[in-house]
C-alpha cells in the first residue's frame, strides 16, 4: 500500500493501542525522543526499554534482545528520522530472520523534536519499500488504526520478522521519560527475567 493513501494517525494513540495488545510480557524498545516519550506515557511496563541517545539503534537493540530471548516477542518503536540513520540494520535483520521481532516505524516526515525540520526522505522515499528492498518481506503500511491492530495481530502470529509503518501527525510526545539510564536498564533486565532486584 502506498503511504500517501494511508490515514495520518497519532503516535500516542497507536502506542496505547499496541500496549493494550501485549499479554505475554513482550519486550518493547522505544527509540529516541518522542517515540519513547509516548511509550512512557502509555504506562510504564517492566519490559519497556527507553533510549536516551544512540539515535537509530532501536531496531539493533531489539534485535539483540530477540536473539537473547527467542521465546519472547520483541517490539521496537522507531521514528522515520531515526530509521534513516541506520537503514543497514534492516538488511541485517532480514538476513538473521528473527522469528520474534516486530518493528514499528512512526513516520511524520519531520524531526519533530528539533523544530519540525523535514527529513531528507520526506515526500520522496517510501520506508516500507526500503524495508521490502532490504529483504524484510513482511513489511506493510498501516492504512488506519484498525488496520494497524490487524497488522500487529498478524505480526504476532508469524514466524518471521515484521515491519509496520504508520503515517503520524506532527504532535510532540505526551509524556517525558525519566532520564535515569541505569534504572531504565536494570528494571528492563528485571522485566525480562534476567535479574532479580536487590
Amino acid at each position: 500500500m502506498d503511504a500517501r493513501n494511508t490515514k495520518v494517525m497519532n503516535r500516542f494513540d497507536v502506542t496505547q493501542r499496541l500496549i493494550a495488545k501485549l499479554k505475554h510480557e513482550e519486550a518493547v524498545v522505544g527509540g529516541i525522543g518522542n517515540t519513547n516519550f509516548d511509550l512512557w506515557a502509555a504506562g510504564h511496563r517492566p519490559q519497556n526499554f527507553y533510549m536516551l541517545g544512540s539515535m537509530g539503534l532501536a531496531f539493533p537493540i531489539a534485535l539483540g534482545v530477540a536473539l537473547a530471548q527467542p521465546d519472547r516477542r520483541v517490539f521496537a518503536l522507531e521514528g522515520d528520522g531515526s530509521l534513516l540513520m541506520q537503514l543497514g540494520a534492516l538488511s541485517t535483520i532480514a538476513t538473521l530472520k528473527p522469528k520474534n521481532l516486530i518493528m514499528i516505524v512512526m513516520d511524520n516526515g519531520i524531526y519533530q523534536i528539533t523544530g519540525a525540520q523535514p527529513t531528507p526522505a520526506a515526500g520522496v522515499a517510501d520506508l516500507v519499500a526500503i524495508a521490502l528492498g532490504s529483504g524484510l518481506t513482511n513489511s506493510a503500511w498501516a492504512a488506519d488504526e484498525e488496520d494497524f491492530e490487524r497488522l500487529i495481530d498478524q505480526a504476532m502470529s508469524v514466524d518471521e520478522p515484521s515491519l509496520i509503518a504508520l503515517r503520524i501527525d506532527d504532535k510532540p510526545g505526551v509524556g517525558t521519560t525519566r532520564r535515569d539510564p541505569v534504572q531504565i536498564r536494570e528494571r528492563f533486565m528485571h522485566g525480562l527475567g534476567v535479574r532479580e532486584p536487590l
Partner: protein
Amino acid sequence: MAGRLAQITCRPGHVDNPTRSVKFRQTAATRPRNLRGTRENAMAIAEQQTSSQAGQAAGDGSWHGIVLQTLKRNEISLVPYVPDRVLTPLIRNLHADPFFTTFATAREEEAVGIVSGAWMGGRRGAVLMQTSGFATLANTLASLAVPYQIPLIMFVSERGTLGEFNYGQSLVCRTMRPVLDSLALEHHTITRLDELEFIADRSIKQAVTTQAPVALILNPLLTGGKVFDK
C-alpha cells in the same frame, strides 16, 4: 511462543542470583545447533572441553585461536562484526563454530546496539571491528554503553601504525585512545601472544563484573597487521 517458557539458569556472572531459574531463556542444550557432521560435532565437544580448563591455551596457539577460546570460556556467544583483513581467520573460525552466532553488520554502531540488547536479555556478546570503525562509535559509547552501564566488549584490529600505508588510517588511529580516555574507558593494547589470554580473559571478566565497556586493541605486533598491497 510465549507459552513455551524454558526453565533455565542464567550464565554465571550475568546475574546476581544465578541459582534462581529464569523464564524465557534457552539452555545450551536446547539451543538449536547447526552442526555440519559428526566430525565437526566431535571437534566442537573437544573444544568445549578444552575451553572449560581455565588457563589452558587454545588449539594451535594462534592469536585468533586464543581469542576464540577465551570468548567461549566466558560464554560470549554473540559476535557481530564489521570485517577487517587481519580479523579474517578469527571471523572464519567463529562462523565455523556452532557455539557462536556471528554475522556482519552494516555499521559498528549497529553491532554495539545488538550486543547491548543481548546483554540486557541475558546473552553475552562482543563486537569485532577495525580502528576506523571504532572512530564511528563515540556517540554510541557516550549515550548507550557507558550511561546504561553495559559491559560492551570490543576487539579492535589496529590499523594506522607500525607500517601503515594509508594516511587516513594513520590519522584516524590517533583518535582512538583519546576517545577511550575521554570517557575513562578501560582499554588495553595487546602486543604479545603470551599476554593475550591473560589480558583478554581478565578484561572480559572485569567488564562483566564492573558493568563497564572494555576495548581490547589487537596491535600489529600480535597479529602481523596489514602491510602494503595486500
